[in-house]
């Protein structure tokens, strides 16, 4: 559906997007993840034909964004960051105007508008002036606008930013429902959102793609061994030595917590060493008070990837 090849966008001397390539398949919900200023918005603006790339090509729904830009725009629905709307119009008027611009035949316009109003839960504010709506409602008006011409592809730039937790849950639900019929590319810097909504994640940092996979694969791949947290009574130093001898342990961190010791044990390459550790402790007659496994969240992966990247840059410099 979306195919991006060696895309680069250079502003005067900074590359906002630096030679990125990715594919989005039909029916995917893809999350574009990255810290602020990573190039998410620029990528989306190129895909929606708002601005062309400096180098590289991108095709959306089979059309080139540069040569067939009008066809691309007809096939995509775009919700820009901060949802710009004409604040002096009424919701209904605005959507009808947008429907007209997007070439929906007159006889279908009202029906389409009604469907979108309902899907986004804004039927009861359709006669209000957009400027008087709250942020959450404005967001939904923007989403309704993106949807109104039944686009094959939805491109949503930070769709949940600035919403309250309830509204975020609602919008996510709407997006998930939309994912059944549309291909969606959304950007965000909120990680749980990606875990919940997307079936593919592209992490970009400083204009480059640093990771691209399904959320669960990404977690498996990067969880270079799961961490186990232990609480043991006894002589901390000795315990640490004996645990360290268990095969497959990468590191043991010891922390004294009153009269008990807390250990954080990192195992190598996805091995589950809980049983071995248990045997080792029992063999030496220490008292195990607690053992729990800590799974890595996408949050930690994101942090790892983006900071690793900066460390490399620092080291290279």
């Amino acid at each position, binding site marked *: 559906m979306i195919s991006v090849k060696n895309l680069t966008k250079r502003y005067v001397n900074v590359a906002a997007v630096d030679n990125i390539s990715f594919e989005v398949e039909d029916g995917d919900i893809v999350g574009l993840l990255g810290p602020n200023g990573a190039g998410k918005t620029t990528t989306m*603006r190129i895909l*929606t*034909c708002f601005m062309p790339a400096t180098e590289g090509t991108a095709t959306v729904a089979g059309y080139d964004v540069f040569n067939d830009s*009008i066809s691309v*725009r007809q096939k995509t629905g775009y919700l*820009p960051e*901060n949802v710009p709307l004409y604040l002096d119009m009424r919701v209904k008027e605005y959507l009808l105007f*947008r429907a007209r611009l997007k070439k929906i035949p007159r006889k279908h316009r009202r029906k389409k508008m009604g469907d979108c109003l309902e899907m986004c839960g804004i039927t009861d504010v359709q006669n209000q002036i957009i400027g008087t709506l709250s942020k959450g409602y404005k967001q939904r008006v*923007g989403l309704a606008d993106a949807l109104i011409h039944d686009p094959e592809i939805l491109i949503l730039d930070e769709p949940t930013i600035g919403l309250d937790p309830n509204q975020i849950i609602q919008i996510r639900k709407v997006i998930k429902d939309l994912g059944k019929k549309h291909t969606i590319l959304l950007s965000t810097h909120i990680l749980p959102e990606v875990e919940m909504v997307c079936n593919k994640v592209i992490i970009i940092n400083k204009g480059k793609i640093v990771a691209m996979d399904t959320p669960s694969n990404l977690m498996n791949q990067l969880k270079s061994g799961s961490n186990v947290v232990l609480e043991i009574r006894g002589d901390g130093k000795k315990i640490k030595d004996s645990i360290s001898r268990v095969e497959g342990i990468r590191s043991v961190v010891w922390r004294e917590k009153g009269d008990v010791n807390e250990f954080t044990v990192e195992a190598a390459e996805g091995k589950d060493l809980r049983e071995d550790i248990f045997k080792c402790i029992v063999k030496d007659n220490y008292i195990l008070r607690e053992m729990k496994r800590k799974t890595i969240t996408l949050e930690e992966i994101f942090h790892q990837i983006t900071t690793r990247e900066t460390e490399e840059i620092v080291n290279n410099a």
Partner: protein
Amino acid sequence: MRNVHSIFLREIRSYFFSPIAYIVISVFLVASGFFFAGNLQFWQEASLKGSLDSIQFFLLLLTPVITMRLLSEEAKSGTIETLMTSPVTDFDVVFGKFLAGLGLYMVMILPTWIFVLFLSIFGNPDFGPIFSSYIGLTLMGGLFVSIGIFVSSLTRNQIVASVIGLISLILLWVMGFLSTYGDNWYYECLRYIGTFDHWESFTKGIVDTRDVIYYLSFTALMLFITVRVVESRKWR
């Protein structure tokens, strides 16, 4: 053309949603009515002579107010992004907005026909110069609005757009006066570029194709440049 129409309708509605259309139109009508009465008293003649020059001057002052928001507001509020990512061309947008600006301008000068009505009730005016003057006013409106929309495309700030628009129109007007100070080729150029000289023949009842071409080509040039400026977001 359908997109041009949609954008035209939205802009016209937007003018009347905000107080701006009402303010501009009432200021214009009060001022031009006042000067019409004054001129009539002074010349004691059933013509729009004199009044038309003041009408033209007020149009010059007020069109930048009409055009200031056309593109700068879109840039400032960010709606340019939704607009330009919908299936419309840059030309559709610029031309639709131009027509809306010109539409409001026409709505503004339409009520001045009441002066003509008065003249024909109380006197026997020569309709030739009156019709030609209104043709001239329309053509001039096109030029003023196109200059205004061009200036509006250059900035995100409406105030800046209106001030620079006003300065440009005044310069264009003053150029015509400057040309009377000499008869070199460059004075001749100034005379041709300035609006004053072209406007004058319309008030005399002459519809000269040279003047018509001047207004139309100048308008087209401004619109062409405006489309380029709007496009420039792509390579800036």
